[in-house]
């Protein structure tokens, strides 16, 4: 045997291995092959290949593993059970950048499924290795590491705290300053995942100076980056007034409003979420948004978008209006009521209707002026319809009832109340009649109108239990009219008249 022949055997073996991992990696990218691969025992075959002497084979094996683990949590668990993670973590610090990328991909794929799996990734000491990868020069490695860290942190506060304790935050903040768009995106998303759990975590991210850099990227033309940036900013500002104020101090305000006109749906939604999270904290912050023209922009946005994208905008209007009557008036003059009414009638889904009803209730509950503005938009019958609809969810029913009650208790605009007299159930009718009983004694024109529009007749037809509030209101209304008119409209009065005719004895 010559030396060449001996070497040829090795060469063939290496070629076969290479071909095997490459084919497996390719097969693993199609979901329909996964089960077959799993049954064929691919895990136990790939594991030794991770330790192969040829770097290409190692990388491809890691890639195949990552694709398998990405598919479902059973396979991810198999990766954990197979003790593959320690090898990967060990080699994360050692190997070249391609391998690092592939290993980070496997870690990410394992960590994404459940908190337990993410915890097992953390238990292998992956965090430190990943944080070191963030310091790597190659943007691809940084991207993969940031992605994995983000997937680990997104599950719960403990895991996010572990990520923060490993010192990832300053490096992620550095990553968002890199020129590569995809790295920026993923770093922003990781920061967003870290901050979403608790005020302390968000404060840590803020202390690392993330807000200024995130705020700079608001006007970036890349839509996917903007999604993540706005998501991160809203996750930061949702926790407390201080954090929201810090976000506002980055002078995001007139600039973010332009993003409400973005063609990308998710950008719009995330911007509206950001505005909502800021507005919900204090009247001052809401006032600031209103003064920047934010309400008009949000109202336009609510009008332009459909479905779930609308929801944060609707809630933002509600939060702003809930703070004070002045702000509610600002929403009204920005034509917010009309858009909310359209959303209430157009949207088929219950939770969006419920949000619209809630927002309208918040707008109308302050003064008669507010209630009138809401009532004039013909909202009350729609709210009543939402409340009475048979297939409405419980949340929608309670929200629309609350809103109706809030608005009715302030409403003195009688033309809007009259239709409710005819088709409201007793618990709503009580408030409607109550409003009539408050207004009618003081307004002669309204009394006249009330009779001609057959309101009085309707009142007489109501059967109220004596002693209840409703009966009292009816009594008050009846007292504002002469007895004959009240009698005339009482049901059964014609019979009484005929009876009198019978009993009458002519004197002649």
């Amino acid at each position, binding site marked *: 045997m010559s030396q060449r022949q001996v070497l040829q055997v090795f060469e063939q073996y290496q070629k076969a291995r290479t071909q095997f991992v490459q084919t497996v990696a390719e097969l693993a990218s199609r979901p329909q092959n996964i089960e077959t691969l799993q049954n064929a025992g691919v895990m136990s075959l790939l594991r030794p290949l991770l330790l192969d002497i040829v770097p290409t084979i190692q990388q491809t094996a890691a890639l195949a593993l990552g694709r398998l683990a990405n598919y479902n949590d059973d396979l991810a668990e198999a990766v954990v059970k197979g003790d593959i993670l320690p090898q990967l973590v060990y080699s994360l610090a050692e190997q070249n950048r391609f391998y690092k990328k592939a290993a980070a991909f496997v870690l990410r794929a394992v960590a994404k499924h459940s908190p337990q799996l993410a915890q097992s990734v953390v238990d292998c000491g992956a965090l430190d290795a990943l944080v070191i990868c963030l310091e790597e020069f190659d943007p691809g490695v940084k991207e993969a590491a940031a992605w994995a860290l983000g997937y680990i942190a997104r599950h719960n506060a403990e895991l996010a705290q572990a990520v923060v304790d490993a010192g990832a935050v300053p490096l992620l903040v550095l990553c968002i300053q890199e020129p590569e768009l995809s790295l920026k995106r993923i770093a922003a998303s990781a920061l967003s995942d870290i901050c979403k759990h608790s005020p302390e975590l968000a404060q840590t991210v803020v*202390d690392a100076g993330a807000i200024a850099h995130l705020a700079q990227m608001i006007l970036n033309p890349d839509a996917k980056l903007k999604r993540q940036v706005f998501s991160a900013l809203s996750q930061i500002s949702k926790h407390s007034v201080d954090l929201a104020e810090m976000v506002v101090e980055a002078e995001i305000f007139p600039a973010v409003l332009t993003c409400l006109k973005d063609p990308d749906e998710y950008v719009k939604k995330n911007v509206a979420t950001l505005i909502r999270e800021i507005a919900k904290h204090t009247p001052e912050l809401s006032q600031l948004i209103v003064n920047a023209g934010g309400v008009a922009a949000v109202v336009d946005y609510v009008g332009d978008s459909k479905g779930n994208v609308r929801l944060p905008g609707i809630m933002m209007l509600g939060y702003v209006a809930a703070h004070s009557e002045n702000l509610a008036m600002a929403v009204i003059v920005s034509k917010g009521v009309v858009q909310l009414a359209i959303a209430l009638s157009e949207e088929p889904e219950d939770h969006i209707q419920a949000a619209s009803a809630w927002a309208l209730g918040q707008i109308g509950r302050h003064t008669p002026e507010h209630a009138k503005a809401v009532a004039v938009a013909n909202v009350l019958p729609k709210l009543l319809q939402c409340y009475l609809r048979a297939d409405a969810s419980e949340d929608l029913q309670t929200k629309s009832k609350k809103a109706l009650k809030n608005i009715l208790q302030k409403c003195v605009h009688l033309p809007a109340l009259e239709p409710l007299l005819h088709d409201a159930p007793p618990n709503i009718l009580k408030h409607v009649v109550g409003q009539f009983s408050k207004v009618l004694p003081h307004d002669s024109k309204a009394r006249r109108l009330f009779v001609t529009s057959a309101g009085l007749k309707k009142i007489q037809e109501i059967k109220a239990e004596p002693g209840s509030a409703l009966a009292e209101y009816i009594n008050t209304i009846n007292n504002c009219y002469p007895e004959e008119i009240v009698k005339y409209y009482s049901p059964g009065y014609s019979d009484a008249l005929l009876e009198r005719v019978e009993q009458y004895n002519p004197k002649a």
Partner: protein
Amino acid sequence: MAAMVRLLNETDNIVETAYQRKNAAEAERIQEFAASVKVQAWFRGSRVRCYVKHLNKCATQIQRRWRGFLGRQFFRYYVKNCVLVMKLNFYNLQATKVQKVWRGYYVRKYVFNYYSRKRYLEALVIKNDIIRNELEEYAEQQEQNRRRESEAKDKAARERLARKYHYLISTHVIPGVFNSPYQPYPGPMEYTLASVKPLMHKKKKSTNNPYDPAWKSYGHELPKPQQLPPLPHKPQGPFREPDEVQNQRYKEFQPTLRVATSFTALDEAREKMKAEEWVGRINDDIFVPFSRRDHMYEPLLHSTSKFGHLPYGTNYFREEFVDKHVTRMPFKTVVPPIPVFEKLNDTYSQGQV
């Protein structure tokens, strides 16, 4: 004695007289008694009446004085009260006026100023219009940009297609597929084909690169100048000594440390160190913590420092020197604050309500 005798003589007479008188008196006695009683009664009556009248007069006098005194006292008291009530009412009225004015002022300035609110809302409407216009313009501009881009893309794709199918163009003799002989005019594609250049095959990179002035490649060899540059006629001085020049020309090579060290020296040293370590190690399997929860999490040596993590940002957010505090309790003012003045200039700033 005579007198005695006379008396004795006259005794009967006297007795007679006495009887007579007595009888007379007896006869008159009851009447006189009644008369005297009447007289006495009248007298006594008038005397007592007079006395009682006197007493009544005195009592009236006393009562009058006393009542006058009491009345004057009551009057003084009453007047005092009246004045007090009057003053009180007056002051209340004034206080109400002051309060009314103050409350009006306060509410208009700090709580609800109708005109300011109105102005604010009007300004807000204008601001909203401006923002709406701006956003509209921005959206339109973005839309235009996108449209332009997509048009350019479409156009490029069309042109590429036309170039690709350029070989289907009709010639003078044979009409192409786009130039149907059954129609009066050729189709639009025909004109497009005529307007573009045919797609050529990719140029293969020539292997014998000439000299590239952009320094991207030198090809196989450096270009050789056709002729040498002309020499000047006379060498220009002053020159150094020939020995010195000779020494400098053939002096020993003295590289810097960086140049002298091998480029891979660091890696080699690391390899060597690892090999040495491997010799001393008993077990090759590195024990890696996998899923033990009872131990503390051990960070790598690489990422720790002797200074540890900053407590700032995780344990606390603001510096405070508790040991320098005089007392643990926060300071409190002695005088309770006046709530209205606390609110002053706090709820209000220029330009907003």
